[in-house]
């Protein structure tokens, strides 16, 4: 670290300087809107502070001290590092310096409009931070983040007129192009990082890149980002459209700073990437095309901002082109000369041009050049603006005595040097293109001079065109009436400051030299900026070209008029590239819309079909790729697995046949029965697989599921009212067979797989062959080899896994159960309330379309008009013609679950207590034997449902004495308690303990475990969920 002030930490200082504008912007938003003046000064302070810190860094830290910062997410190759080297600091100073001036100008431009100022300053300051971060970031990814931040803030600022559709459209265009380019750039930088192995610019600069196929691809992608951001052909059309933004924004973002981001990136990468032959070719080709295109269109435009915008495009092409010359190297380094000065020169005339265009629009309500004939003669303000504008135009035209002239001379020399070094004739084309640009710029200058200084009568100067509507003009006049002279002068003073620097550079380069020499990267054989008379004292080909430019431009501009022809700028043209983006946009939106209508049919069949097809393709592809050959002969030998497997074959065949039957059976109730049968068969298969817990659960679930199904079917129409299959069944069949085949293959290949050993070692130091072994070994033990306490103290490993090892999973699962049950309650509750409401009788109407509902009987429950049997069955295939028929039907489902069967009532008196007792047994024994909370909950639910069946709807309420949903709440609370208890003692969530307790008078120790509390919660939830769901559906049938 060179020098340095004691106690000053450059890392935090530079980071602060980057963040400070956005921070100030945010703080400024807190202030009330009417604090106008305070807000302005506060906002100017931010870039000034940054500027001072960067200056201090330049002076005291130096430019070669290397990057600084901290690691952020090293695994993502993302670090919060900044690199204040020559290039970075130059751009940072430029951005913050011009930023401060633009803040002043914005106040003058918007006037005391508190709402506009309230919005503009945070946006501009956000952009400032984005741009500062972009030019200083060392890490690739960090740079892209700031890159996109500038795109976002540019979007916000271009779309300033939120109500103007054109402005919004232009903002979207700029955003799509620049941020889309940013995404491609990110890809390119990642590829570059992968190919080179380094993820920061500072590391890349020190690396000798070796040839790699990824490098050209990375390069191409990075270049796309550059082209998009720096408005190069063919993606330049967003920049002229971005002129929809207020002029301060155009002056700041779209001429001086943001559009240079691409140039900056090229400058950063030019040296490391110059070894690739395609790099200079790309840069020079695209740059040259852009130079010519921008220059030509600029000549044929009449709107001031558009002229300047296309001139900017042209100049950006020149800057990109300049870094292409980096590949041509001679004795004194690369052919590029004083590149920093080139960039500075552009900022020093283009920002004033935009500032002045805004000022003229303020005075004249027009930006059209044709309205400005004789502008110079209109008054004092006009005269001042005209002089400044012409001075800036003169610098743009690179007339002698300006920094622009020096810069152009240096550039021409660079190109010529490169030509001499390589002998490449293409560079002569570049030379010609630059000369053309020079001619065009000079012609534009002459045109401006003729217009502004010429007689008024030459055009239709006063009154100006109606660029603004009438009210807009009144607003402007108001603005001028209340504008104080100080702020009014700020309309042009920022431009004057920048122009002063421009002319100092041209007239007294010695004054700028110290600063530029500190920053300049490619001084070449010029140790200092060429002086005023340098061109004359050292005549070269560049001087010749300059003379040629001036002579030919005067000839081109003046001769046709003299000879009676129209001037070459006679009419304005449109840039055909403007059509590119709308066409692309239309293609995307229309194509997307078409695709949407194909894919998003709203029909669940389509989605299921797509999912199935994707399943077949993806799983099939993955299986094919793993290349597991399944030896079928081996499999067939395996088929004859001995007589022990016979039951499995029997029940498996049963399940398969039942599934086929389910497809064939069209009767509704029949299907449910078959599904239930499959469930029981599967339960037996579980049992044959030595999974008694599963078998128990499956059997209990099948009981309640059957009840649930029948209840739901009672609420649904009997058969479909609509014609059966219209289309072909073949796709449906093909998809089913495809899925079946894929699953067959998957099951075979997964079952055959030799599993990789687990990373966990068992007590003997051997790796576990599968995870289950770990659980089996540790289910009962209290302490494992490492001295931890994984044991659950239970013999039934499945239950120990559920309530102990994977307790958190179970916790989540029972929460899902509760949510599903609440969903059922809410859906039905909401519906019932509506149907009870007499004003919503149509719901009853809909309910009554259900053939299985009979509203007439429960008339006392509902208000009388509702309960009338209003409509006949719609769902029935043979609609009943009059309401009387309805009441004649046997009320099969009227009572829902309540059956009026005396034997059942008697039987339940015995069955219910026994079942509940059995449930308790299963619950308490579950830790040691098959069973547990899930099964116990289901058993208890079945018992209670049986009771409800026999004794009616109210019986459940009498028996439970609390609402069913409280069971769920209690269960969930218990599980949470069981989880949180250990955390209070400093253990992880859901840690369980167990021990033994010998009850006095008993010889067998009783084992207690805290997991039992958790299991109790599980049981209560399962009980609550089953009861709530079935009860709710049953009441639907009973109430009406």
């Amino acid at each position, binding site marked *: 670290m060179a020098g340095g002030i004691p106690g000053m930490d450059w890392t935090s200082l530079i980071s602060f300087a980057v963040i400070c504008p956005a921070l100030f912007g945010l703080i400024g938003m807190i202030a009330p809107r009417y604090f106008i003046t305070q807000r302005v000064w506060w906002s100017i302070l931010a870039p000034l502070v940054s500027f001072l810190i960067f200056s201090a860094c330049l002076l005291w830290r130096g430019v070669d001290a290397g990057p600084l910062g901290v690691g952020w997410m090293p695994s993502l190759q993302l670090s919060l590092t900044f690199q204040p080297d020559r290039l970075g600091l130059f751009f940072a100073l430029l951005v913050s310096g011009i930023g401060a001036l633009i803040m002043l100008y914005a106040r003058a431009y918007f006037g005391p409009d508190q709402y506009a100022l309230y919005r503009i300053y945070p946006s501009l300051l956000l952009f400032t931070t984005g741009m500062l971060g972009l030019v200083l970031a060392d890490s690739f990814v960090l740079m892209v983040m700031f890159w996109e931040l500038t795109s976002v803030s540019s979007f916000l600022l271009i779309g300033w007129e939120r109500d103007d559709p054109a402005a919004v459209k232009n903002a979207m265009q700029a955003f799509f192009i620049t941020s889309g380019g940013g995404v491609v750039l990110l890809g390119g930088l990642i590829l570059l990082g992968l190919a080179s192995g380094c993820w920061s610019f500072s590391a890349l600069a020190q690396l000798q890149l070796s040839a790699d196929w990824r490098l050209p691809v990375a390069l191409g992608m990075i270049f796309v980002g550059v082209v998009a951001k720096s408005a190069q052909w063919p993606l330049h059309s967003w920049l002229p459209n971005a002129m929809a933004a207020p002029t301060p924004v155009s002056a700041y973002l779209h001429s001086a700073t943001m559009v240079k981001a691409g140039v900056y990136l090229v400058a950063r990468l030019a040296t490391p990437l110059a070894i690739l032959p395609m790099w200079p070719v790309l840069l020079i080709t695209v740059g040259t095309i852009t130079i010519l295109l921008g220059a030509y269109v600029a000549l044929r435009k009449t709107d001031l901002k558009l002229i300047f915008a296309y001139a900017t495009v042209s100049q950006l092409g020149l800057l990109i082109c300049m870094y292409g010359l980096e590949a041509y190297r001679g004795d004194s380094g690369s052919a590029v000369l004083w590149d920093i000065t080139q960039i500075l020169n552009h900022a020093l005339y283009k920002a004033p041009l935009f500032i002045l265009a805004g000022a003229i629009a303020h005075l004249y309500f027009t930006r059209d050049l044709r309205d400005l004939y004789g502008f110079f003669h209109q008054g004092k303000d006009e005269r001042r603006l005209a002089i400044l504008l012409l001075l800036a135009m003169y610098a743009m035209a690179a007339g002698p005595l300006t920094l622009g002239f020096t810069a152009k001379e240096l550039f021409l020399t660079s190109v010529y040097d490169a030509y001499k070094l390589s002998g490449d004739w293409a560079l002569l084309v570049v030379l010609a293109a630059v000369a053309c640009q020079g001619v065009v710029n000079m012609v534009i200058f002459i045109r401006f001079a003729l217009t502004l200084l010429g007689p008024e009568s030459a055009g239709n100067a006063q009154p100006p065109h109606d660029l603004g509507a009438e009210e807009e003009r009144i607003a402007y006049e108001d603005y001028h009436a209340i504008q104080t002279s100080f702020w009014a002068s700020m309309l042009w003073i920022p431009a004057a400051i920048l122009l002063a620097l421009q002319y100092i550079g041209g007239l007294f380069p010695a004054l700028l030299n110290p600063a530029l020499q500190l920053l300049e990267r490619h001084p070449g054989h010029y140790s200092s900026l060429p002086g005023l008379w340098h061109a004359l004292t050292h005549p070269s080909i560049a001087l010749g070209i300059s003379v040629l430019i001036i002579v030919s431009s005067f000839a081109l501009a003046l001769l046709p008029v003299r000879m009676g022809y129209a001037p070459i700028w006679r009419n304005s043209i449109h840039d055909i590239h403007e059509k590119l983006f709308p066409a692309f946009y239309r293609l995307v939106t229309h194509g997307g819309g078409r695709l949407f209508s194909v894919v998003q049919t709203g029909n669940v069949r389509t989605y299921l079909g797509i999912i199935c097809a994707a399943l077949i393709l993806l799983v099939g592809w993955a299986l094919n790729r793993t290349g597991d050959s399944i030896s079928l002969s081996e499999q067939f030998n395996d088929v004859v697995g001995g007589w022990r497997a016979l039951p499995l074959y029997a029940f498996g065949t049963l399940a398969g046949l039942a599934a086929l039957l389910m497809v064939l059976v069209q009767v509704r109730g029949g299907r449910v029965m078959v599904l239930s049968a499959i469930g029981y068969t599967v339960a037996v298969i579980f049992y044959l697989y030595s999974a008694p817990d599963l078998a128990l659960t499956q059997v209990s679930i099948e009981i309640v599921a059957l009840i*649930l199904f029948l209840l739901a079917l009672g609420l649904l129409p009997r058969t479909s009212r609509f014609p059966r*299959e219209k289309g072909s069944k073949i796709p449906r069949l093909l998809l089913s067979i495809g899925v*079946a085949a894929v699953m067959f293959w998957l099951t075979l290949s997964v079952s055959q797989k030799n599993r990789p050993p687990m990373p966990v070692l068992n007590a003997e130091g051997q790796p576990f062959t599968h995870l289950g072994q770990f659980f089996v070994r540790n289910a009962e033990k209290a302490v494992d080899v490492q001295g931890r306490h994984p044991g659950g103290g239970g013999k039934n490993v499945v239950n120990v896994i559920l309530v102990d090892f994977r307790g958190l999973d179970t916790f989540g699962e029972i929460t899902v159960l509760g949510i599903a*049950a609440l969903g059922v309650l809410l859906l039905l509750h909401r519906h019932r309330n509506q149907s009870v409401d007499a004003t919503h009788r149509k719901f009853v*109407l809909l309910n009554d379309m259900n053939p299985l509902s009979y509203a007439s009987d429960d008339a006392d429950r509902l208000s009388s008009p509702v309960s009338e049997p209003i409509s006949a069955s719609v769902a029935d295939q043979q609609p009943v013609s009059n309401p009387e028929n309805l009441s004649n039907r046997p009320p099969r489902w009227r009572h829902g679950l309540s059956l009026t069967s005396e034997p059942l009532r008697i039987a339940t008196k015995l069955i219910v207590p026994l079942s509940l007792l059995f449930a308790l047994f299963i619950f308490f024994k579950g830790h040691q034997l098959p069973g547990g909370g899930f099964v116990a909950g289901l058993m208890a639910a079945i018992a209670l449902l049986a009771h409800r069946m026999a004794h009616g709807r109210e019986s459940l309420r009498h028996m439970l004495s609390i609402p069913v949903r409280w069971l769920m709440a209690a269960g969930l609370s218990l599980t949470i308690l069981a989880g949180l208890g250990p955390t209070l003692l400093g253990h992880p969530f859901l840690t369980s303990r167990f021990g033994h307790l010998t009850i006095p008078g008993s010889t067998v120790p009783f084992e207690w475990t805290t997991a039992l509390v958790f299991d109790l919660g599980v049981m209560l939830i399962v009980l609550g969920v089953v009861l709530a769901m079935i009860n709710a559906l049953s009441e639907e049938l009973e109430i009406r």
Partner: protein
Amino acid sequence: MTIFIATIIAVLFGCAVYLMLGRELKEICMGLFLLSHAANLVILEAGRTPGGVFVPVLGEGHLLSQLVDPLPQALILTAIVIGFAVQGFLLTLLVVTWRRAASLNTAQLAQPQPLPIAPASSSPPHVDQPQGQSTGNDPTTILTTDRQEHR
């Protein structure tokens, strides 16, 4: 044995998918429930370990390596219970769908229903008019009046 159970699983999956691609929501639900059986069986079969024969309960005198892998069983157990909850929710949704839309046909449910542009205070639907007539019982008219009232 694997090839047999894989065949059964394939049959279950095929039937389930065939049902799920049906035209009616009830059919789709049935298919989904059948699918969950098949999926459970896949997990169970995939979790089968070479040596595992006995029920994963300790203290029965078997070698630890002779026990069946308990982990797939624990996974399936919660899957079964969650499957039930999903069944309940799905069937309730079906009931509510039927009441609101008077249709369980997927193609018909997918059609955007034309919303009548009528003032919200329009007269209540004439519920007695279409009584008993098969043609007058068009559920869509009821639906539109329903929506109209709700706007």
